């Protein structure tokens, strides 16, 4: 059994806690069943199914903490795993930053589960792949794609009476469709909680159109251009920047949000050490997280069981909130700002970002652009400088020149060297946000985006 109901998870974790003799004990139970299919060269290449459930027990004596985990659930195994975590805790050095456990809390309701996704079969996956392969073949194109669906749950309980439970289904689909001679390439990505929203044929039609449209790309000189970044092109840059917004790193002087004193010296005692409250980005920029967002729901609790509600990180360009740990919040006297528990396992997945935008579709934004470059996606993004958040990477799978509201012709891919901070200060217009990789991101029209060289890659 890989998926426990709330009642089953509660009963199991209560039994685990009954074996504890430590000062504090916290348990996490995570399970999932995942299936996938992969295809390339217009045929299925690999496919598989994997089941996993993990129980992790963390015990503490004072500030000494130990962890042990098991995937057998008979009484003897449950007692054994508690004893092992206690043994590890007694061996560990004291962690001066250890914080006491949280008590019970109320959590908002979130619906992330869809039976449609939970009941997927190998036959369904094969058909969904075929729905993408067949139109590619009809167009003398070559498809390579990947479909992954999962159902999973996470539960947390501790000796202070806290209990939280969340279950979710997810499906992710990407496909790259290329011309047979390799001169054109298009790509599309979709992710949902409910697989009935996913039509692989409709999605593939976008990749087909970009593949055909990107043949005979012309060279444009590298330089600064107005660009329209599709949501898939900006989501990684924004996620990387958000990941670097830790309050602690800022306070310690090692972040783009660190506050300097006069002449670059450390701020004087009592002066602000970070840039919360400052306008760092253009005023169109508002970014928040919200577990109850109906399109991109997440658990309403953090990894330590703290309730998570809507949090505004950036409001009209002003940095409002920086995520922190309970230790750092306590030390600096600011409220604890947790982020939602991001999935099973030890480390979970990404952080959900909800960026506000306008009402226009991507097509309408193109129509209203006199000259610019449309970017489908960015690839191999790597940081060049953490203090400016300067990144490099390349455009891929559909880069087009726009003139007088129309896509004029495909252009060769560029390498970019740009910072999301600069980007978010150069916004011309934001379109209607769409779901992408679990976040809501609008298409963005940005001026003076820096392309530094050309690439021959298609």
């Amino acid at each position, binding site marked *: 059994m890989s998926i426990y109901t709330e009642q089953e998870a509660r009963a199991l974790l209560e039994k685990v806690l009954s074996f504890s003799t430590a000062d504090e004990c916290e348990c996490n139970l995570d399970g999932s069943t995942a299936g996938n299919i992969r295809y390339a060269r217009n045929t299925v290449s690999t496919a*598989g199914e994997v089941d996993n459930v993990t129980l992790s027990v963390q015990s503490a004596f004072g500030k000494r903490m130990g962890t042990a985990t098991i995937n057998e659930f008979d009484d003897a195994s449950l007692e054994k795993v508690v004893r092992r975590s206690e043994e590890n805790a007694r061996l560990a050095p004291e962690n001066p930053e250890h914080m006491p456990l949280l008590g019970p809390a109320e959590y908002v309701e979130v619906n992330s589960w869809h039976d449609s996704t939970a009941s997927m079969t190998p036959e369904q996956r094969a058909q969904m792949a075929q729905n993408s392969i067949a139109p590619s073949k009809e167009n003398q194109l070559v498809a390579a794609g990947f479909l992954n669906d999962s159902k999973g749950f996470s539960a947390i309980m501790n000796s202070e009476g806290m209990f939280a439970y969340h279950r979710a289904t997810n499906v992710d689909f990407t496909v790259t469709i290329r011309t047979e001679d390799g001169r054109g390439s298009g790509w599309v990505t979709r992710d949902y909680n409910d697989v009935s929203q996913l039509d692989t044929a409709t999605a593939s039609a976008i990749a087909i159109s970009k593949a055909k449209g990107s043949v005979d790309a012309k060279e444009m000189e590298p330089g600064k251009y107005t660009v329209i970044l599709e949501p898939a092109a900006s989501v990684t840059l924004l996620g990387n920047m958000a990941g670097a917004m830790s309050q602690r790193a800022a306070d310690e002087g090692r972040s783009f949000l660190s506050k300097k004193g006069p002449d670059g010296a450390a701020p004087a005692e009592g002066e602000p050490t970070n840039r919360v409250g400052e306008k760092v980005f253009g005023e169109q920029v508002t970014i928040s997280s919200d577990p109850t967002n109906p399109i991109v729901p997440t658990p309403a609790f953090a990894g330590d069981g703290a309730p998570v509600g809507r949090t505004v990180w950036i409001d009209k360009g002003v940095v409002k909130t920086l995520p922190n740990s309970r230790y750092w919040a306590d030390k600096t006297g600011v409220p604890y700002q947790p982020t939602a528990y991001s999935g099973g396992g030890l480390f979970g997945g990404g952080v959900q970002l909800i960026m506000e935008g306008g009402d226009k579709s991507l097509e309408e934004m193109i129509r209203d652009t006199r000259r610019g470059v449309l970017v489908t996606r960015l690839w191999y993004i790597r940081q060049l400088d953490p203090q400016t958040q300067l990144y490099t990477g390349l455009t891929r799978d559909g880069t087009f020149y726009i003139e007088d509201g129309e896509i004029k012709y495909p252009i060769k891919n560029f390498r970019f060297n740009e910072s999301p901070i600069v980007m978010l200060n150069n916004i011309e217009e934001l379109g209607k946000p769409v779901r992408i990789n679990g976040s809501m991101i609008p298409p963005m029209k940005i001026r003076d985006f820096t392309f530094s060289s050309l690439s021959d890659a298609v």
Partner: protein
Amino acid sequence: MDRRDFVKLTGIGVGGLMLPITGRIVSASELVGANMDFAAKKALANIALEAATSAGATYADARVGRYLNQFITAQEKRVDNIVNTESAGIGIRVIANGTWGFAATSDMRPESIANTARQAVAVARANSKFQTDPVQLAPVPGVGDVEWQTPIRVNALEVPIKDKVDLLMEVNNAALDNGASFITSVLFQVNEQKFFASTEGSYIDQDIHRLWAPFFATAVGAAGFKQRQGLGNPVGMGYEYLDGDPAEQISVQGANVGYRWSYDMVKDATDAGKQLQAKLKARSVEPGTYDLVLDPHHLMLTIHESVGHPLELDRVLGYEANFAGTSFATLDKWRSGNFQYGSDIVNLFADKTQKHTLGCVDYDDEGVRTKEWDLVDEGILVNYQAIRDQVHMIDQDESHGCCYAQSWADVQFQRMPNVSLRPNTEDLSADDIIADVEDGIYIVGRGSFSIDQQRYNFQFGGQLFYEIKDGKITDQIEDVGYQSNTQEFWNSCVAMAGESDYRAGGSFFDGKGQPSQVSAVSHGCPTTRFNAVNVINTARKVG
């Protein structure tokens, strides 16, 4: 787990790091428990092979795996995390109706194994409906019962935790006492106990050990902050790699110390502290064209990105088109027999046999005996990296032996073997190479790296940059990145040091595939010179 999650775990904001955590955490004492008996694993594997065959599979292999990891993370004066993980289970791969199917389970009771084997056959049958090219496997002889272990002197998992914590504390203090403001140090220890069985009559038990001890130091100054990573290599060795044997250090006049098959982590952290202070004061590079001298701790990653990846046959053929990408090194270029990948002193070879490397094993994950082969011979592209179901597409009938899965729960596929640059037959030193350069830059350590999906255009940084004037290293400089095109770059290779300068760096967590899997791979090379490369300045002012 992707890089972002690792960053979240450790608070490290640098490095292309990934760590697969598919299993359960276990106590320290449990980690050193005995490996499962050969006969017991053979019995479990046979259940899978028989169930698959009975269900109609024409080929099946089963991998019974136990994967142990321990990693310890220390920040400044405190230990952040000591995590022991164990993951055990069985992965079953089959061919039915000419189509691959795969299923895996952690439940190793006989009935569960048989069900999982039947599920793998069901997946293959479902997919065969739309399969157009039936799988063709290159022949591999069954080898019967064989065993192999990474040659190690000290099993890192058996070293007391206190000794490891003490080492990381000493490392952190050395950096903090010498100029660093912050440091995160990590000790990764990996043990893969994997048993492979196939319907072709092989039962191969391998016990594989790997180690990596990176650190990430930061200094904060008036003008901002600078970072410097450790220069230790990830290796296929035991804890003896951390002995700090001075005979394994290679010094370069006026610059750094490099490490061969032994690492002095405390010395490197001490150097890092001092070099960070120098970085804070260093002048920014003037962009332009320079002759570059690349040290092995840096060049390994350039080889990885610009040679290792483009010569993976699955990329060349389009199997990775949807994720990692394809390759500029197309079949017509290889078939021409005269595609000049590099200058005529460039000899690049692949292997899974070099002792102490991350790729070193006796058999790959589909039971093929490993070997060494040439990829680029005197500058000419001569071969690719390929496995059993691919070699027929390049008119060959023998797998290269580079199939790998990150765990029992993942299907095996073609992964990069070690890819290395042969040293000069004349045993020149790094100093000899630098002595001939009039106006150049010496780059040490791996920094930011980015390359397009067909591996033409790349941009790489480093950890330390030194100006070379008239054959001598002068000042430490900053903000260096170089942009080039793979073929142009390797054709600008004009000189390299010899065998005694040869070192193997590597990538502990190289990502590929969907679902993404990591693998560990080494790249050996000597200090090497490339002429007239475009250098950019990576500093920029932002609001």
